[in-house]
């Protein structure tokens, strides 16, 4: 099957090269006529890197969703579009100790916050072109930020509402102007952001995928199946959401910052949808694909670990599972009941459900490992308490749990756990049910399909007592996780979008969060300490039961080399060498 696809792509390539000069001539005339940009000619082909070439074959089960980089919120789409689109700033494309703070990508330097974080000045690089030949200009930047609101990006509110004029844009997206928020100057190629209130994560938000810079002429609606042109080393050429996605090199790409957007090795990338994870593993073992999106299923871990150990990629993710306890409904409106469940839950069993200690670690706090400001502490294990937390989780403490349940007076109450249908969630839910039964509750589990369960458990109208769910952080940030999940502002009653599922609102902790956020602009280490303190304070109130943090276990083909894994971008697909 790989052979057939290869020949089809080859044919495309030949046709492209034949018509290239004609195409360029036409395009340059058009561009000259339209907006007076200097004549676009294809970038001179830089010397190909060693080991470059070939077709990278990827496989994923679910379909790709929308390709619009300002709307797409699926992890798969974001991974695919990392080498297709660029943001003003970016996370470094290498792993290691220096890889956390954002670096400059489309701009020359990372800006320093001015006026107490209300102004950011950036200078756009020269000589960058989109995949349609158009040169990148400041007008594209301004238009892209306006488009974030016009197109209804999910993060328009949470991430970009600090920009001046954003409120008007949220209220009336169709006529979004962002006047006063984004100032551009074409001669100096400068872009200035003005914020109405300081945003401690603004640099990270500039590096976030929804702030991808697209040509100003991109239509202001969800592009769906037709990917807009991007500045990255690849462009998407064909897409059928349930069958395949094809990418080819961007002919106008020239590497401007190797650490921010490196040139890619494969000539073509083809992603095929629809195979089950079990079948994906077998297909990679048979050398039919190079990479699978899903995790290796639990019953293949042994096989893969013994016979294909060199091809396994195991890496940390900011992904963890937890049970959100509704603090407005009995029995978990009682602090003691919440603490009791935290003491009683056997996190080692949860680790086993995900494949063992090599793949999962027990999580006893609300910030996962790898997040800035993570300080390992566990308040709810044998021999520990919120006042005297231990360093790591050791064992469940059923006696303390039962005592707390008795003291809370909630023993014998009926508890319903709402969990998604996915196999691992089912196992965790069963374990949680057994635990609740062991400490004195009458517990049942109700499962529903995951896409419905997630909005269902957020809506206060559904009166969900315990919601089993997971969280994958968008980018490494303590505030991004804690504020989004436990702040009073994240509670939206009667709405399907209310990420603070516990409905937890504590004014004292809210103040602590604001203080920690404000510190981020001036003193990052102190901010980290403050966020760690918020983490501990939140755990003392136990609005949720953190369970496990898991690593990705994925299988690559024998021929794939040069695997670079970063915390934010996972495996860099463009950097895989297959020849």
């Amino acid at each position, binding site marked *: 099957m790989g052979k057939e696809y290869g020949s089809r792509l080859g044919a495309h390539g030949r046709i492209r090269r034949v018509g290239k000069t004609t195409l360029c001539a036409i395009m340059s005339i058009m561009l000259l006529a339209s907006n007076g940009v200097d004549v676009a000619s294809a970038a001179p082909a830089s010397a190909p890197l060693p080991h470059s070439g070939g077709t990278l074959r990827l496989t994923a089960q679910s379909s790709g969703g929308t390709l619009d980089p300002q709307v797409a919120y699926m992890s798969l789409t974001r991974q695919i579009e990392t080498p297709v689109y660029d943001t003003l700033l970016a996370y470094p494309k290498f792993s290691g100790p220096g890889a956390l703070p954002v670096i400059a990508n489309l701009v020359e330097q990372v800006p320093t916050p001015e006026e107490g974080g209300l102004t950011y000045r950036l200078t756009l690089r020269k000589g960058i072109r989109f995949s349609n030949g158009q040169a990148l200009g400041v007008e594209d930047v301004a238009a892209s930020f306006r488009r974030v609101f016009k197109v209804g990006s999910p993060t328009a509110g949470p991430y970009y509402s600090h920009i001046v004029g954003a409120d008007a844009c949220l209220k009336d997206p169709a006529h979004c102007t962002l006047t006063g928020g984004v100032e551009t100057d074409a001669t100096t190629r400068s872009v200035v952001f003005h914020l109405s209130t300081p945003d401690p994560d603004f640099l990270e938000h500039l590096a976030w995928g929804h702030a991808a810079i697209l040509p100003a002429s991109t239509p202001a609606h969800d592009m769906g199946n037709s990917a807009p042109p991007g500045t990255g080393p690849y462009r998407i050429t064909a897409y059928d959401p349930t069958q395949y996605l094809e990418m080819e090199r961007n002919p106008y790409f020239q590497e401007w910052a190797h650490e921010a957007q490196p040139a890619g090795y494969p000539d073509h990338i083809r992603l095929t949808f629809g195979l089950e994870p079990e079948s994906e593993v077998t297909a990679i073992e048979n050398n039919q694909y190079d990479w699978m999106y899903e995790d290796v299923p639990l019953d293949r871990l042994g096989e893969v*670990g013994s016979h294909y150990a060199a091809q*396994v990629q*195991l890496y940390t993710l900011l992904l963890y599972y937890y049970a959100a306890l509704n603090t407005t409904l009995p029995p978990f409106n009682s602090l003691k009941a919440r603490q009791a469940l935290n003491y009683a839950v056997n996190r080692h069993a949860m680790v086993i459900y995900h*494949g*063992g200690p090599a793949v999962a670690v027990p999580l006893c706090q609300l910030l996962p490992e790898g997040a800035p400001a993570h300080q390992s502490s566990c308040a709810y294990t044998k021999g520990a308490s919120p006042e005297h937390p231990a360093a790591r989780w050791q064992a469940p403490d059923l006696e303390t749990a039962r005592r707390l349940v008795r003291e809370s007076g909630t023993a014998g109450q009926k508890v*319903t756990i709402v969990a998604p249908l996915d196999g691992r969630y089912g196992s965790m*839910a069963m374990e949680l*049910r057994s635990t609740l039964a062991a400490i004195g509750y009458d517990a049942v589990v*109700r499962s529903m399909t995951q896409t419905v369960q997630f909005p269902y458990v957020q809506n206060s109208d559904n009166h969900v007592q315990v919601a089993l769910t997971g969280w994958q952080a968008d980018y490494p940030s303590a505030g991004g996780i804690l504020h989004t999940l436990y702040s009073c502002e994240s509670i939206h009653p009667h709405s399907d979008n209310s990420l603070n599922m516990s409905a937890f609102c504590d004014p004292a902790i809210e103040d602590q969060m604001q203080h920690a956020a404000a510190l981020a602009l001036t003193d990052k280490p102190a901010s980290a300490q403050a966020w760690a303190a918020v983490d501990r304070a939140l755990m003392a109130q136990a609005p949720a039961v953190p369970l496990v943090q898991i690593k990705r276990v994925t299988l690559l083909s024998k021929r794939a080399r040069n695997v670079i894994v970063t915390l934010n971008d996972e495996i860099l697909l463009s950097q895989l060498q297959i020849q």
Partner: protein
Amino acid sequence: MTADCSSASGTGVPVPAPARPAGPWRKAGRTLLRNRSAMAALGVLVCMTIACLLAPLYAHDVARVDPFTSNVAGSIMLDGHEVDIMQPNDNPLHLGLSPIGPTGHAAYLLGADSQGRDVAARLLYGGRNSLLISACAAVLCLLLAATAGIAAGFFGGLVDTVLSRLMDIMWAVPVYLFAISLSIVTVSQGLKLGPFVIEADNLLIPIVIIALVYVPYAARPIRGRVLALRQAEFVTAARCLGVPRWRIVLFDILPNVMTTLVVLGPLLMALALLAESALSFLSIGVQAPAASWGTIIQDGEGLIYTRPMVAVAPGLAIVIVVLALNILGDGLRDALDVRDAARRSS
């Protein structure tokens, strides 16, 4: 058969009347009892039912396990050694764990599933739910299908059109969507139908759903048979004699449709056994941690590469039950067949 009475009687001595031949039901019963394979099948079914009813005894006293609590971090004693229920896989990366396989001892006879529970004990508990649900669903389905099929075939005209289109709708309806919807509606409180509240774990839900799903499947063949029978001579004869229609249906049509019903019954039970697992996957009917053969198969589908026994054991149980029912059904059909009896006696 006729005794040579004429020779013994001489002149006018009254001859004792021959014994009254047994009625049709007793004849059928005797035929069935003489059918050895049918009796063997009945025996197997009875044994299986008894075993499933004795599930608590097995779990408590023989295997000494709790088949409903997750036991992933636990261990059992085998031959004096303590063995973890979830065994870490032996590979350089220490990836993954596998539940123990069949031990051959009383505890975990068939091994453990992905939650560390004893498969054999769950198999027995599961048999209760599975057999109950599938038997009730099959019987209910046959009742409804027979009514609908006979009515549509016999009365024809508008009744036939309406019922047939109703069957079309029932067959084309996306049952899985309805099941998903029902599972979400019954999450916190049950489904309110007038004065009744049906909880999500009520076994009536899967019984009714499965029965309704297969009504068209059983009704259409019955309707086809009745369409042919309508013109048979004995029916015409009965009509000419002025026999009321309901008597014709009950005493002339129904016995001839019996074959189809008796054959479809066990087949429907097999289909119901498997359909029930799809519903319990959605938290309708048998709720985890309660077991049914279908749910055990589903647990086993994630263990095919390492512990195939988890899926094979309930599958085998289903095969045995379906086989036994089919043989019994054959025996029943042979015993009840009107035409066959005539042939046998002649």
